[in-house]
């Protein structure tokens, strides 16, 4: 099966149309991305990076694309009820890949913060957008010689491992993308309210959506972002998302992602984070409900004394599939990375976690901690885990641990002795298990909401998305 062929043909046929519908900044990178995509194609399961998710199969059906930018007649504010209570946010919507232009009355960012359509921003601030758009990815995909293992063979340095191969999904997204979101927080500016972006997926026909997000925090800027994926229709949706995050020196970013879609949804998300001196970034993704999800996170620590916290919680059942692939690239000294991923797998669900910590030659005094813990609740659930340490510097402290197991029998009995039924005791232990990830959420209302959603999810009261009434 060679699923890439249809996308190659589509691109060749629609090249003009894509140009006519998008700004020149977005258009400028298409041809290069196309060359890469044509060369590498979509990965099969032999590709180490994609061994746990069948990309070929996911991309083989014939999806429609909204290349002509038809407006979906929907007002998300009317249908979306899934506000996080008690949290005053700047609320925005992206319908499929299009930024919803109608502003929520309260959503007025302050202090020069830009939150807008990516395509529009490219038009209004071409210099600003082109400085970052595609550049975070480019840097991530450029090999750096001599800072990692390898050998000089015939006078040429051959790295041991290709850390920087271009990614096919990112290339596809760059080829076809037409819009998405741009968030810009200027120097030393603090966004006082959290910025909430709801990605609404809706269509009447099977649809491929390519969404692009660019987040730039200049030096000393601070922001909290919450992305919620919601599905509002019952057709097959395939969404690719490439998010580029630039965290300038001493900036602070908290980025939360909550997925609440349905079984017919396939999500391929590639998140590239570039951190500079003393920046602090916390990423926390919770997969509550989905079809097939593949999240790739690449964090490049470019500046000393940066901190990255990378957390994820997954609850899956039925035939759901969640694959988190992370790479934290310690390029410079004195950075800290903490990683915690927890999965609860029920029914026939499949979970995968591959977490690579790469400590390059120059990255002395690195501290890194990685934990992956998983609960398989049924015999037919399947967990793959691969916590990897790749270390080329000697003055480091790195630990990782992974467990797959069940609920603690002694704890279950203790609870039953106190009169709590076996089922209830199991639920309490499951909340507690996932709760560790949710407790890492700094925004208190969001934390409470997540605890509530997780509890509902485990009680089977959360069949599809909790907020919308459409499905």
């Amino acid at each position, binding site marked *: 099966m060679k699923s890439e062929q249809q996308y190659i043909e589509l691109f060749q046929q629609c090249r003009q149309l894509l140009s006519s519908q998008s700004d020149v900044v977005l258009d400028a990178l298409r041809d290069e991305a196309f060359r890469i995509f044509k060369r590498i194609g979509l990965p099969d399961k032999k590709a180490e990076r994609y061994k746990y998710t069948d990309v070929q199969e996911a991309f083989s059906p014939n999806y429609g694309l909204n290349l002509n930018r038809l407006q979906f007649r929907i007002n998300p504010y009317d249908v979306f009820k899934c506000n996080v209570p008690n949290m005053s946010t700047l609320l925005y919507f992206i319908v499929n890949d299009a930024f919803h232009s109608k502003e929520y009355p309260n959503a007025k960012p302050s202090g020069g913060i830009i939150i807008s359509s990516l395509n529009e921003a490219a038009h209004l601030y071409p210099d600003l957008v082109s400085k970052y758009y595609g550049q975070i990815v480019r840097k991530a995909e450029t090999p750096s010689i001599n800072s990692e*293992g390898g050998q000089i063979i015939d006078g040429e340095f051959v790295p041991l491992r290709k850390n920087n191969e271009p990614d096919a999904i990112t290339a596809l997204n760059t080829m076809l993308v037409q819009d998405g979101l741009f968030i810009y927080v200027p120097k030393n500016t603090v966004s006082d309210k959290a910025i909430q972006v709801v990605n609404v997926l809706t269509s009447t026909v099977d649809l491929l959506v390519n969404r692009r997000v660019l987040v730039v925090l200049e030096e000393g800027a601070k922001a909290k972002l919450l992305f919620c994926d919601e599905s509002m229709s019952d057709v097959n949706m395939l969404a690719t998302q490439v998010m580029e995050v630039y965290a300038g020196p001493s900036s602070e970013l908290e980025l939360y992602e909550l997925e609440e879609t349905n079984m017919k949804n396939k999500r391929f998300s590639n998140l590239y984070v570039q951190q500079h001196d003393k920046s602090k970034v916390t990423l926390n993704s919770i997969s509550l409900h989905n079809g097939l999800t593949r999240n790739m996170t690449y964090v490049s620590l470019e500046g000393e004394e940066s901190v990255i916290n990378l957390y994820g919680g997954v609850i899956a059942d039925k035939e759901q599939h969640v694959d988190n692939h992370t790479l934290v690239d310690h390029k410079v000294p004195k950075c800290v990375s903490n990683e915690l991923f927890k999965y609860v797998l029920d029914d026939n669900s499949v979970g995968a976690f591959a977490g690579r910590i790469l400590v390059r030659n120059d990255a002395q005094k690195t501290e890194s901690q990685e934990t992956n813990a998983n609960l398989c609740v049924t015999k037919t659930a399947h967990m793959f885990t691969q*916590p990897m340490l*790749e270390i080329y510097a000697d003055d480091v402290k790195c630990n990782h641990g992974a*467990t797959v197991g*069940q609920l603690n029998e002694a704890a279950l009995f203790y609870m039953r002795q106190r009169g709590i039924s076996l089922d209830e005791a199991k639920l309490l232990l499951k909340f507690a298990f996932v709760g560790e990830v949710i407790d890492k959420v700094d925004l208190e209302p969001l934390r409470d909401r997540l605890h509530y959603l997780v509890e509902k999810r485990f009680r089977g009261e959360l069949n599809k998305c909790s907020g919308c009434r459409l499905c």
Partner: protein
Amino acid sequence: MENLKQEKNKLVREVADRKYEYGFITDVHTDIIEKGLNEDVIRLISARKGEPEWLLDFRLKAYSYWLTQKMPTWPHLQIPEIDYQAISYYADPTAKKKDGPQEIDPELMKTFDKLGIPLEERLALSGTAVDAVMDSVSVKTTFKESLREKGIIFCSISEAVREHPDLVKQYLGSVVPYRDNFFAALNSAVFSDGSFVYVPKGVRCPMELSTYFRINARNTGQFERTLIVADDDSYVSYLEGCTAPMRDENQLHAAIVEIVVNERAEVKYSTVQNWYPGDSEGKGGVYNFVTKRGHLRGADSKLSWTQVETGSAITWKYPSCVLSGNNSQAEFYSVAVTNNYQQADTGTKMIHIGENTKSTIISKGISAGKSHNSYRGLVKIDARADGARNYSSCDSLLLSDTCGAHTFPYIDVKNDTGIVEHEATTSKISEDQLFYCNQRGIPAEEAVGLIVNGYAKDVLNKLPMEFAVEAQKLLSVSLEGSVG
């Protein structure tokens, strides 16, 4: 106990200044066949060994499969291209010159003496029987007769093919089929000698069995094959040691070890691998690409792998266990040391199929110089393996800022009653410990040897005594020059 410790420390100090001490070449008439690999060569090897038709068939099938395969590129290793036509696949140092004397060349006996492996039984290490293999041929097997009295078969695999064809036919390739991987196919096509062990029902083997592998001839590859069968309720402890001369060119060693463990039987397999690692510039050394696997077929069976890997330019192997029998238990203890330009990608696979199966993995990686040392391991819990448990602990110690230490565990769990725990740490050798040793007058290099030995203790303790001492010496020697 204290004495023993002092004795060990003395040994460590003694060897601190020594280099690879097994790098000499034995001057002995060796019958080497022409370089190159094709069907005729395989027929020739088979004919030299006087093999039956079925074995030739097995070799040819493996060869034609090998031709369809490419060498995999997934390991964390930089392997220069290997020219399989530039290798001679059979070298027999025991071959008699037509006009020469007909007994074993005394040079051969001397070689093994020099390696500390006397082949005369009266001089032997107490309680150890040895099968000595040089290049492609078994030179001598000691204590064969006294073991035979207990029904234990311990001989070279060539002899086993002649004397016990049914046993060999039943088990050969049953644990590692020739289609298993690229090097398994190559070995199955061209394997020369190796050891065969059969321990009958209910017999506890009274002595350690050991095979000593020596590469001597130039431009040859060693492709030995070991097959160990422990029948119901039996016990055997098996040791393997290896060395090679210092040569500037690389030599390929692609072996297969198959172990069958039947009901309630127990097998311990210990390796001290000290193939020539190449010089400090990375020139020469052995490529050690080995497939080792045990099949715990019977209920309540046990298999334990212990390996100390200090040699070889490139080590690429995963001694593994397939736990089919209910309640079977498997262990893997490993110390892998890399220095200079050495590379290692080693670990294990624990495949849990039977109920209540249990496995333990303890791996200690030590990297120095410009070397790369990777642990790679798979723990798989099958849907049938109710109540399976695994505990893995993989630690890496870094002795320089130019080396690499990597951990690639793969965990696949398909069972809701299984418990798998994996933990790993990577850290630098402790400055405090080093300084403490220095203050007590122990020079840096020796201190590193001591600390590393302490770090590897959990694994070294699993080795039989004589081997443990040997292994400790090796650890220190291997790290020589690693302190800047």
